[in-house]
């Protein structure tokens, strides 16, 4: 992408380039993707271009964004549990496109593949809502366990919900908004990640310090991998062979073999790391306490750069080039 006339569908990054030379993907950069980081304390979103060592200019998005997710056409959706709102970023002017007021405390979020719907956990309401992505209107809801945290939507229309205080994952049919199953996991399930084959769901359990491995066809736990500490985020390598877990107590990215849970590496990052996203041969880790993002090279299993971001980053998401 260049700093010239906007030709892609996703233009936030282009706008950020216009705000300053060191911000966003620079002209001529071979940007395969951009990582966006939501900072809960600062109330901002920043873009991290591929290979950048500095964040783009912060975009104010309203108070206390907890989670950010990328939808089709490069749109980003952020939840604000403290204010009961969802903000939509992107589109023609690359700024705040819309702010939706929604019931309860919206926290975890997923988008439907066609971009028509948002699935949003209501933390204090112990349910998941389906909203129109275009208007924010409530289309339906389904009761889940207590304090729904992470959500992930399989492209076959199955929604998985980490019910943090119920020690279970709820399995929801996203089309009918009915709960099909609950699967008992460890204590304090918080984050979820599907493998590329979509036959395994990895569940980071904050309080029991482990990862539950769910067979998504049989809908049962087939293994439990010990991590230690407080696992708050989880991601899977593109080939499905490794899983990456943030440990908030130790301040580490823990790398496990997806097959047997064997420890492959413990990579020191910042303090209280939470969100983790994989792109190419890099893991991006949001260090909530340290106000930074660690970039970890997945071949050397070392942190290669630590990028300062505004106060309290918890969540990040990758927007690939072909979405722009």
């Amino acid at each position, binding site marked *: 992408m260049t700093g010239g006339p906007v030709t892609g569908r996703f233009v936030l990054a282009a706008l950020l380039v216009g705000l300053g030379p060191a911000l966003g993907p620079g002209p001529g950069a071979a940007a395969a993707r951009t990582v966006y980081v939501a900072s809960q304390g600062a109330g901002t979103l920043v873009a991290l271009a591929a290979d950048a060592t500095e964040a783009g200019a912060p975009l104010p998005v309203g108070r206390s964004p907890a989670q950010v997710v990328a939808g089709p056409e490069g749109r980003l959706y952020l939840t604000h*549990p403290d204010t009961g709102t969802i903000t939509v970023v992107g589109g023609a002017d690359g700024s705040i496109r819309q702010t939706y007021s929604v019931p309860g*405390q919206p*926290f975890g979020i997923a988008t439907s593949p066609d971009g028509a719907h948002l699935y949003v956990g209501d933390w204090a309401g112990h349910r998941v809502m389906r909203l129109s992505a275009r208007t924010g209107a409530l289309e339906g809801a389904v009761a889940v366990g207590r304090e729904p945290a992470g959500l992930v939507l399989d492209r076959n229309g199955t929604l998985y919900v980490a019910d943090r205080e119920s020690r279970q994952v709820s399995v929801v049919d996203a089309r009918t908004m009915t709960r099909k199953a609950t699967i008992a996991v460890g204590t304090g399930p918080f984050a979820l990640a599907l493998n590329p084959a979509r036959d395994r769901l990895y569940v980071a359990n904050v309080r029991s310090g482990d990862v539950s491995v769910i067979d998504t066809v049989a809908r049962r736990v087939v293994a439990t991998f010990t991590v230690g500490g407080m696992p708050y985020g989880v991601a899977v390598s593109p080939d499905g062979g490794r899983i990456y877990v943030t440990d908030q107590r130790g301040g580490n990215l823990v790398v496990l073999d997806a097959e047997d849970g064997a420890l492959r590496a413990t990579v020191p990052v910042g303090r209280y790391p939470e969100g983790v996203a994989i792109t190419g041969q890099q893991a991006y880790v949001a260090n909530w306490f340290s106000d930074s993002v660690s970039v970890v090279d997945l071949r050397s299993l070392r942190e290669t750069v630590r990028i300062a971001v505004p106060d309290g980053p918890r969540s990040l998401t990758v927007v690939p080039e072909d979405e722009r």
Partner: protein
Amino acid sequence: MRLGVPALVLILLSGAALAHGPTPQKVDQSIVIAAKPDAVWKVVGEFAGIGTWHPDVARSEGSGGNASGGQRKVTLKAGGTLNEGLDEMNAAGRSYSYRLTDPDLKALPVSSYSATLTVSPEGDGARVEWFGRFYRGDTGNEPPDDLNDEAGRTAMNRYFAEGLKGLKAKVEGKAAP
């Protein structure tokens, strides 16, 4: 007080339930002490020994040892009790991590926290870092002023800062403030 396992489980459960609002807050304090890190650790590394150095603490009673799973019951001079559990003790690294097991809004206006205390070399002396994450006392979306984020930040930072000042005074052999 000695807690049987069933009582302990109940406390852990009650502490976990609804303890977490969605917006965490930071507490972050540090101090430099004119003493070797090992000398500082000798004082601060005993989890239940906080009563010997924290000026706000009337008394502290431990159970379960100085390892993961150990507990301390900290009674404050100003009133209120903090029941805290040790998550990890790393004596070699001069660091420990712990959490509040059940809130007492009289003691601190917060619903939950986890924290880490670390002693590291700094010049000829030691630096003690005491930091953590907490949630405000009322995790609903309309908290009263005395249970909001700002009240939590003020109280937690003050409690940590006063503790470190007391630790410094004790280790350096001066009268407790």
